[in-house]
Protein backbone atom coordinates (compact mmCIF):
# COMPACT_ATOMS: atom_id res chain seq x y z
CA UNK A 1 0.00 0.00 0.00
CA UNK A 2 1.23 3.46 -0.70
CA UNK A 3 2.07 5.45 2.40
CA UNK A 4 -0.95 7.65 1.86
CA UNK A 5 -4.36 6.34 0.93
CA UNK A 6 -6.93 8.34 -0.91
CA UNK A 7 -10.26 8.49 0.78
CA UNK A 8 -13.61 9.56 -0.56
CA UNK A 9 -14.97 11.96 2.00
CA UNK A 10 -18.62 12.88 2.40
CA UNK A 11 -19.67 15.78 4.57
CA UNK A 12 -22.66 15.50 6.85
CA UNK A 13 -24.24 17.74 9.35
CA UNK A 14 -22.29 16.58 12.35
CA UNK A 15 -19.16 15.34 10.69
CA UNK A 16 -17.55 13.52 7.79
CA UNK A 17 -17.64 10.01 6.47
CA UNK A 18 -14.56 8.86 4.57
CA UNK A 19 -14.28 5.62 2.66
CA UNK A 20 -10.97 4.23 1.42
CA UNK A 21 -11.68 2.13 -1.66
CA UNK A 22 -8.13 0.82 -1.51
CA UNK A 23 -9.03 -0.90 1.73
CA UNK A 24 -12.68 -1.77 1.20
CA UNK A 25 -13.32 -5.40 0.38
CA UNK A 26 -17.03 -4.96 -0.08
CA UNK A 27 -18.06 -7.24 2.74
CA UNK A 28 -21.03 -5.10 3.62
CA UNK A 29 -20.72 -5.54 7.36
CA UNK A 30 -20.91 -1.76 7.70
CA UNK A 31 -24.15 -1.72 5.76
CA UNK A 32 -25.63 -4.42 7.94
CA UNK A 33 -24.50 -2.67 11.10
CA UNK A 34 -25.62 0.87 10.31
CA UNK A 35 -28.81 1.36 12.22
CA UNK A 36 -29.61 4.48 10.22
CA UNK A 37 -29.67 2.64 6.91
CA UNK A 38 -27.22 5.22 5.79
CA UNK A 39 -24.96 2.96 3.71
CA UNK A 40 -25.33 1.57 0.22
CA UNK A 41 -23.20 -0.15 -2.38
CA UNK A 42 -21.19 2.35 -4.33
CA UNK A 43 -20.18 2.53 -7.94
CA UNK A 44 -16.61 2.86 -6.84
CA UNK A 45 -14.90 -0.51 -6.76
CA UNK A 46 -12.96 -1.71 -3.78
CA UNK A 47 -9.66 -3.49 -3.64
CA UNK A 48 -11.05 -6.80 -4.90
CA UNK A 49 -12.96 -5.23 -7.75
CA UNK A 50 -16.24 -5.54 -5.93
CA UNK A 51 -18.39 -2.52 -5.09
CA UNK A 52 -17.32 -0.39 -2.17
CA UNK A 53 -19.85 1.51 -0.05
CA UNK A 54 -21.15 5.03 0.08
CA UNK A 55 -23.09 6.88 2.75
CA UNK A 56 -26.36 8.67 2.16
CA UNK A 57 -28.07 11.58 3.83
CA UNK A 58 -29.28 9.35 6.67
CA UNK A 59 -25.77 9.29 8.07
CA UNK A 60 -25.59 10.63 11.58
CA UNK A 61 -21.82 10.07 11.70
CA UNK A 62 -22.25 7.83 14.70
CA UNK A 63 -19.15 5.79 13.81
CA UNK A 64 -20.69 2.36 14.18
CA UNK A 65 -19.67 1.45 10.65
CA UNK A 66 -16.10 2.37 11.40
CA UNK A 67 -16.11 0.08 14.39
CA UNK A 68 -17.61 -2.72 12.31
CA UNK A 69 -15.21 -2.55 9.41
CA UNK A 70 -12.58 -5.28 9.63
CA UNK A 71 -10.38 -3.47 7.17
CA UNK A 72 -10.31 0.04 8.62
CA UNK A 73 -11.75 1.27 5.35
CA UNK A 74 -14.04 3.82 7.00
CA UNK A 75 -13.11 6.87 9.00
CA UNK A 76 -15.90 8.85 10.60
CA UNK A 77 -14.95 12.19 12.08
CA UNK A 78 -17.23 14.34 14.13
CA UNK A 79 -17.05 18.06 13.99
Amino acid at each position, binding site marked *: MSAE*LTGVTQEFEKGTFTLFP*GLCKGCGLCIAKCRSKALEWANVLGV*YGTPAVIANENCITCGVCQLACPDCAITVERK
Partner: protein
Amino acid sequence: MSVQPTMPKSWRVDTKPHKFCPGCGHGLVLKALGQAIDELDIQDRVVFGCDIGCSLLAWDFFNVDTVQTHHGRTNPVMTGIKRANPDLICIGYMGDGGGYAIGSQHLVNAATRNERITAILVNNAQYGMTGGQMAPTTLPGMKTETTPYGRDVDSTGYPCQGPEMVAAITREGAYVARASVARPVPLKNYIKRAIENQMSGNGFSFVECLSTCPTNWRTNNVETINFVEKEMTKYYNVGEIKVPDPKEPLGIKTSIKVPTGGIG
Protein backbone atom coordinates in the same frame (compact mmCIF):
# COMPACT_ATOMS: atom_id res chain seq x y z
CA MET B 1 -2.50 15.51 4.64
CA SER B 2 -5.95 14.30 3.70
CA VAL B 3 -8.05 12.13 6.00
CA GLN B 4 -6.25 8.88 6.65
CA PRO B 5 -7.63 5.51 7.76
CA THR B 6 -7.91 5.21 11.52
CA MET B 7 -5.75 2.17 11.80
CA PRO B 8 -4.12 1.33 15.08
CA LYS B 9 -0.61 2.73 15.17
CA SER B 10 0.81 -0.69 15.71
CA TRP B 11 -0.62 -1.95 12.40
CA ARG B 12 1.88 -2.25 9.61
CA VAL B 13 0.41 0.03 6.99
CA ASP B 14 2.37 -1.26 4.04
CA THR B 15 0.79 -4.70 4.32
CA LYS B 16 -2.75 -3.36 4.20
CA PRO B 17 -5.30 -4.20 2.97
CA HIS B 18 -4.63 -7.32 4.96
CA LYS B 19 -5.00 -10.83 3.63
CA PHE B 20 -8.24 -11.82 5.33
CA CYS B 21 -11.43 -12.33 3.35
CA PRO B 22 -14.09 -9.66 3.06
CA GLY B 23 -16.06 -9.54 6.30
CA CYS B 24 -13.66 -11.74 8.21
CA GLY B 25 -13.73 -11.27 11.96
CA HIS B 26 -9.98 -11.75 12.21
CA GLY B 27 -9.62 -8.18 11.04
CA LEU B 28 -11.80 -6.96 13.87
CA VAL B 29 -9.97 -8.91 16.53
CA LEU B 30 -6.66 -7.67 15.24
CA LYS B 31 -7.97 -4.13 15.19
CA ALA B 32 -8.91 -4.50 18.85
CA LEU B 33 -5.53 -6.01 19.60
CA GLY B 34 -3.79 -3.20 17.77
CA GLN B 35 -5.71 -0.65 19.78
CA ALA B 36 -4.85 -2.42 23.02
CA ILE B 37 -1.17 -2.45 22.08
CA ASP B 38 -1.37 1.25 21.24
CA GLU B 39 -3.10 2.14 24.47
CA LEU B 40 -0.62 0.17 26.53
CA ASP B 41 2.26 1.58 24.48
CA ILE B 42 4.05 -1.75 24.29
CA GLN B 43 4.79 -2.09 20.61
CA ASP B 44 8.48 -2.54 21.36
CA ARG B 45 7.94 -5.30 23.90
CA VAL B 46 5.27 -7.39 22.24
CA VAL B 47 6.01 -10.65 20.50
CA PHE B 48 3.04 -11.72 18.46
CA GLY B 49 2.69 -15.38 17.62
CA CYS B 50 0.26 -16.51 15.01
CA ASP B 51 -0.97 -20.02 14.56
CA ILE B 52 -1.45 -21.87 11.31
CA GLY B 53 -5.09 -21.32 10.55
CA CYS B 54 -6.33 -18.12 9.01
CA SER B 55 -4.39 -16.42 11.78
CA LEU B 56 -1.25 -17.25 9.77
CA LEU B 57 -2.27 -14.44 7.43
CA ALA B 58 -1.34 -12.04 10.23
CA TRP B 59 2.39 -12.84 10.08
CA ASP B 60 3.19 -9.38 8.75
CA PHE B 61 0.16 -7.63 10.18
CA PHE B 62 1.67 -5.52 12.97
CA ASN B 63 4.76 -3.49 13.38
CA VAL B 64 5.76 -5.82 16.16
CA ASP B 65 8.04 -8.84 16.19
CA THR B 66 6.00 -11.74 14.91
CA VAL B 67 6.50 -15.46 14.67
CA GLN B 68 4.34 -17.71 12.59
CA THR B 69 4.17 -21.00 14.42
CA HIS B 70 2.57 -24.33 13.58
CA HIS B 71 -1.08 -25.30 13.72
CA GLY B 72 -1.97 -25.47 17.40
CA ARG B 73 1.56 -24.70 18.60
CA THR B 74 1.47 -20.99 19.29
CA ASN B 75 1.05 -21.37 23.03
CA PRO B 76 4.24 -23.40 23.48
CA VAL B 77 6.24 -21.08 21.25
CA MET B 78 5.03 -18.09 23.26
CA THR B 79 5.76 -19.97 26.47
CA GLY B 80 9.30 -20.66 25.35
CA ILE B 81 9.88 -17.03 24.47
CA LYS B 82 8.39 -15.79 27.72
CA ARG B 83 10.37 -18.24 29.82
CA ALA B 84 13.55 -17.18 28.06
CA ASN B 85 12.86 -13.47 28.21
CA PRO B 86 10.18 -12.50 30.74
CA ASP B 87 10.46 -8.84 29.75
CA LEU B 88 8.70 -9.55 26.51
CA ILE B 89 4.93 -9.52 26.28
CA CYS B 90 3.91 -12.67 24.50
CA ILE B 91 0.59 -12.73 22.71
CA GLY B 92 -0.49 -15.92 21.02
CA TYR B 93 -3.15 -15.71 18.37
CA MET B 94 -4.98 -18.81 17.24
CA GLY B 95 -8.18 -20.28 15.88
CA ASP B 96 -10.65 -22.55 17.62
CA GLY B 97 -9.19 -25.52 15.80
CA GLY B 98 -5.68 -24.61 16.83
CA GLY B 99 -6.61 -23.89 20.43
CA TYR B 100 -9.30 -26.45 21.24
CA ALA B 101 -8.46 -29.36 18.97
CA ILE B 102 -4.86 -29.98 17.91
CA GLY B 103 -3.38 -27.62 20.49
CA SER B 104 -5.67 -28.27 23.40
CA GLN B 105 -2.97 -30.02 25.41
CA HIS B 106 -0.92 -26.86 25.18
CA LEU B 107 -3.80 -24.62 26.17
CA VAL B 108 -4.73 -26.82 29.11
CA ASN B 109 -1.20 -27.15 30.36
CA ALA B 110 -0.23 -23.52 29.83
CA ALA B 111 -3.30 -22.65 31.86
CA THR B 112 -2.52 -25.19 34.57
CA ARG B 113 1.04 -23.99 34.85
CA ASN B 114 -0.23 -20.42 34.86
CA GLU B 115 2.15 -19.36 32.09
CA ARG B 116 2.49 -15.59 31.92
CA ILE B 117 1.31 -15.37 28.34
CA THR B 118 -1.83 -14.05 26.68
CA ALA B 119 -3.76 -16.32 24.37
CA ILE B 120 -6.33 -14.83 22.01
CA LEU B 121 -8.49 -17.41 20.34
CA VAL B 122 -10.76 -16.65 17.41
CA ASN B 123 -13.87 -18.79 17.52
CA ASN B 124 -15.44 -18.83 14.09
CA ALA B 125 -17.22 -22.12 14.69
CA GLN B 126 -15.20 -24.06 12.11
CA TYR B 127 -11.84 -24.45 10.40
CA GLY B 128 -11.52 -21.42 8.18
CA MET B 129 -8.15 -21.93 6.55
CA THR B 130 -8.81 -25.45 5.38
CA GLY B 131 -12.14 -24.57 3.87
CA GLY B 132 -14.76 -24.98 6.54
CA GLN B 133 -14.67 -28.28 8.39
CA MET B 134 -16.24 -28.96 11.76
CA ALA B 135 -14.39 -27.55 14.76
CA PRO B 136 -15.01 -28.39 18.42
CA THR B 137 -16.93 -25.10 18.40
CA THR B 138 -19.27 -25.87 15.53
CA LEU B 139 -22.89 -25.27 16.50
CA PRO B 140 -25.35 -28.14 16.73
CA GLY B 141 -27.01 -28.65 13.39
CA MET B 142 -24.53 -26.43 11.60
CA LYS B 143 -23.47 -27.63 8.19
CA THR B 144 -19.75 -27.80 7.53
CA GLU B 145 -17.67 -29.68 5.01
CA THR B 146 -17.29 -32.61 7.40
CA THR B 147 -20.81 -32.39 8.78
CA PRO B 148 -22.57 -31.93 5.45
CA TYR B 149 -25.93 -32.81 6.97
CA GLY B 150 -25.44 -30.67 10.05
CA ARG B 151 -23.45 -31.31 13.22
CA ASP B 152 -25.04 -34.16 15.11
CA VAL B 153 -24.50 -33.67 18.83
CA ASP B 154 -25.21 -37.28 19.52
CA SER B 155 -22.19 -38.38 17.61
CA THR B 156 -19.89 -35.39 17.93
CA GLY B 157 -20.95 -33.61 21.10
CA TYR B 158 -21.81 -30.06 21.97
CA PRO B 159 -19.79 -26.93 21.27
CA CYS B 160 -16.63 -26.84 23.30
CA GLN B 161 -16.64 -24.46 26.25
CA GLY B 162 -13.10 -23.24 26.12
CA PRO B 163 -13.00 -20.31 28.53
CA GLU B 164 -15.10 -22.24 31.01
CA MET B 165 -12.58 -25.04 30.80
CA VAL B 166 -9.67 -22.70 31.31
CA ALA B 167 -11.46 -21.14 34.25
CA ALA B 168 -11.98 -24.57 35.81
CA ILE B 169 -8.29 -25.41 35.77
CA THR B 170 -6.72 -22.10 36.75
CA ARG B 171 -6.36 -20.62 40.20
CA GLU B 172 -5.51 -17.13 41.25
CA GLY B 173 -3.84 -14.96 38.67
CA ALA B 174 -5.63 -16.11 35.58
CA TYR B 175 -7.79 -13.85 33.44
CA VAL B 176 -10.45 -15.50 31.29
CA ALA B 177 -13.06 -13.87 29.10
CA ARG B 178 -15.20 -14.41 26.05
CA ALA B 179 -15.64 -11.47 23.73
CA SER B 180 -17.33 -11.02 20.39
CA VAL B 181 -16.47 -9.07 17.27
CA ALA B 182 -20.05 -7.92 17.37
CA ARG B 183 -19.12 -5.77 20.36
CA PRO B 184 -15.84 -4.13 19.46
CA VAL B 185 -15.45 -2.06 22.62
CA PRO B 186 -15.58 -4.85 25.21
CA LEU B 187 -13.55 -6.92 22.76
CA LYS B 188 -10.77 -4.39 22.96
CA ASN B 189 -11.15 -3.99 26.71
CA TYR B 190 -10.94 -7.69 27.44
CA ILE B 191 -7.90 -8.05 25.25
CA LYS B 192 -6.31 -5.11 26.95
CA ARG B 193 -7.00 -6.52 30.41
CA ALA B 194 -5.64 -9.87 29.34
CA ILE B 195 -2.40 -8.23 28.31
CA GLU B 196 -2.26 -6.16 31.48
CA ASN B 197 -2.70 -9.34 33.44
CA GLN B 198 0.40 -10.72 31.80
CA MET B 199 2.29 -7.48 32.35
CA SER B 200 1.51 -7.45 36.03
CA GLY B 201 2.92 -10.97 36.29
CA ASN B 202 -0.32 -12.47 37.53
CA GLY B 203 -0.54 -15.32 35.14
CA PHE B 204 -2.24 -16.91 32.21
CA SER B 205 -4.74 -14.81 30.35
CA PHE B 206 -7.16 -16.03 27.78
CA VAL B 207 -9.73 -14.34 25.59
CA GLU B 208 -11.94 -16.27 23.23
CA CYS B 209 -13.42 -14.04 20.54
CA LEU B 210 -16.61 -14.99 18.75
CA SER B 211 -15.87 -14.13 15.17
CA THR B 212 -17.13 -14.30 11.62
CA CYS B 213 -16.19 -16.37 8.59
CA PRO B 214 -18.52 -15.36 5.78
CA THR B 215 -16.45 -17.34 3.28
CA ASN B 216 -17.06 -20.70 4.86
CA TRP B 217 -20.36 -19.90 6.48
CA ARG B 218 -21.50 -18.86 3.01
CA THR B 219 -23.40 -15.99 4.51
CA ASN B 220 -24.09 -12.52 3.22
CA ASN B 221 -23.47 -9.47 5.36
CA VAL B 222 -26.74 -9.59 7.27
CA GLU B 223 -26.60 -13.34 7.85
CA THR B 224 -23.03 -13.06 9.00
CA ILE B 225 -23.90 -10.55 11.68
CA ASN B 226 -26.96 -12.44 12.66
CA PHE B 227 -24.98 -15.64 13.07
CA VAL B 228 -22.37 -14.19 15.36
CA GLU B 229 -24.82 -12.09 17.34
CA LYS B 230 -27.78 -14.44 17.63
CA GLU B 231 -26.76 -18.01 16.91
CA MET B 232 -23.36 -18.27 18.48
CA THR B 233 -24.48 -16.60 21.66
CA LYS B 234 -27.01 -19.38 22.19
CA TYR B 235 -24.07 -21.59 23.08
CA TYR B 236 -21.45 -19.10 24.11
CA ASN B 237 -21.83 -16.59 26.93
CA VAL B 238 -20.00 -13.38 26.30
CA GLY B 239 -18.35 -11.66 29.24
CA GLU B 240 -15.52 -11.87 31.71
CA ILE B 241 -15.36 -15.30 33.29
CA LYS B 242 -12.44 -15.05 35.62
CA VAL B 243 -10.74 -11.92 36.84
CA PRO B 244 -7.75 -12.07 39.16
CA ASP B 245 -8.86 -11.55 42.73
CA PRO B 246 -6.85 -8.62 44.07
CA LYS B 247 -7.20 -10.01 47.58
CA GLU B 248 -5.51 -13.30 46.79
CA PRO B 249 -1.74 -13.16 47.08
CA LEU B 250 -0.24 -13.62 43.65
CA GLY B 251 2.98 -15.14 42.50
CA ILE B 252 3.68 -16.71 45.88
CA LYS B 253 6.84 -18.69 46.12
CA THR B 254 5.77 -21.96 47.61
CA SER B 255 7.54 -23.19 50.68
CA ILE B 256 5.23 -26.06 51.32
CA LYS B 257 6.95 -29.19 52.56
CA VAL B 258 5.42 -32.47 51.63
CA PRO B 259 6.21 -35.56 53.65
CA THR B 260 7.20 -37.91 50.90
CA GLY B 261 10.67 -39.25 51.33
CA GLY B 262 11.42 -37.20 48.30
CA ILE B 263 14.45 -37.62 46.15
CA GLY B 264 17.95 -37.07 47.43
